[in-house]
């Protein structure tokens, strides 16, 4: 197919895949510590073998949790251009070992965080965040509102990815062909409209 109908961006940050694997059942704090620790090791080691090891481990864990490795590989596709650019640049500038390290550690960090996000339902993640932010109560901040803001933000990302495409469709359907740059303004305007509707929905549902 030349072009997909309505491309979607909601897989970019990962979405929850229901399941009953050990990782699904593991308490959030433990999972988060493990993932964070692994990320820190990868980022500080600066060695492509460590990154490769971490990447292999995450892939194995993902497969063990029934996340479907094929789907995972597909969801990394938006990274492709970046990976190519980074590889090319570091190959020329810093040699193959550094290039391998940069690219592999990038992939490892992305897949690790995605493992967490794919095996934990969003409300649980938000609960964890709210708990983490609870000391802020002392400063007069309501941690529940921080949780709400974060979940709204995550929900908005796929919508925003779709905006430009749907506007391009709309322009095409009217046989007007504005320059892509001309579509940026309507896209931002549509974004503000979307924020307004979200605000009304929040207010109407008493989630103030």
């Amino acid at each position, binding site marked *: 197919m030349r072009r997909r109908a309505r491309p979607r961006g909601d897989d970019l940050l990962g979405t929850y895949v229901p399941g009953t694997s050990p990782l699904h059942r593991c308490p959030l704090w433990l999972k988060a510590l493990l993932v964070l620790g692994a990320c820190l090791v990868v980022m500080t080691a600066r060695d492509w073998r460590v990154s490769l090891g971490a990447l292999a481990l995450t892939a194995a864990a993902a497969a063990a949790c029934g996340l479907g490795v094929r789907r995972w590989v597909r969801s990394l596709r938006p990274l492709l251009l970046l990976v190519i650019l980074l590889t090319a640049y570091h190959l020329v500038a810093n040699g193959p070992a550094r290039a391998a390290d940069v690219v592999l550690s990038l992939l490892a960090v992305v897949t690790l965080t995605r493992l967490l996000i794919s095996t934990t339902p*969003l409300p649980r993640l938000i609960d964890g965040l709210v708990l983490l932010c609870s000391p802020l109560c002392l400063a007069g901040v309501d941690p529940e509102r921080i949780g709400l803001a974060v979940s709204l933000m995550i929900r908005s990302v796929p919508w925003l990815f779709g905006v430009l495409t749907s506007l391009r469709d709309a322009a095409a359907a009217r046989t007007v062909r504005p320059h892509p740059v001309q579509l940026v303004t309507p896209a931002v305007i549509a974004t503000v409209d979307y924020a307004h509707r979200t605000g009304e929905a929040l207010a109407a549902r*008493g989630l103030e």
Partner: protein
Amino acid sequence: MEPPHRESLYCADVTVTVEGPRGPVTVLEGVDCEFTARRTAVVGLNGSGKSTLLRLFNGLVTPSSGVVRTGNVDPAAFPRHARSLVGFVFTDPASQILMPTPLEDIELSLRRGVRDRAERTEQAMAWLRRLGLEDRAHHSVFDLSGGERQLVALAAVLAVEPRVLVLDEPTTLLDLRNRLRLRQLLDGLPQQQLLSTHDLDLAASADHVAVVHEARLIDQGPPERMLHLYRHWCENGFPGKTAA
């Protein structure tokens, strides 16, 4: 669930004026009403002010002058209180669903009332089951059909068990089958309902109908008479000011 207690949705000489590009625009003018029927339908032309009237009752719109009461509450001064009495369902369900999946969205509604996480998930599933959506619980809302989304939006509002439901054109995006299903669901609910609609079959199922025209509530009464009049006016021009 609440007992089928009725609140009064009351307006006295309410005017809503907003700032337009060429000076102020009057969106509602001198509206007097008291809706206490089990189901009240508001009908009127596009741009007549129906949505604005509905939004008054949960404080999404504040009157420029006049008095609004939702039960005993002034929604302009105490919007949060008013919103806990009134559940509002928007026309476009996509903008009302705030979380990525139906289950998460309903859990969001329950967050305030139900502290325990497992309990919350259970109750959310129970609501989805009631609306026949349990097998969609974990789907992305982007994958649901229009009708399914409308039902999720309704479930999320019902989950906070409001006393009054306010629905802005709830059937517009639905097919015939889903329209019938939503009607049945509304008929089975204990809550008092106020809805705006262009679907005259739905309006005919109300106990009381109000007609809004050019920012004024021009007539109200039993559905048969009102809908007959409304049809007549649509075809032959509205009374009072010249119809465009």
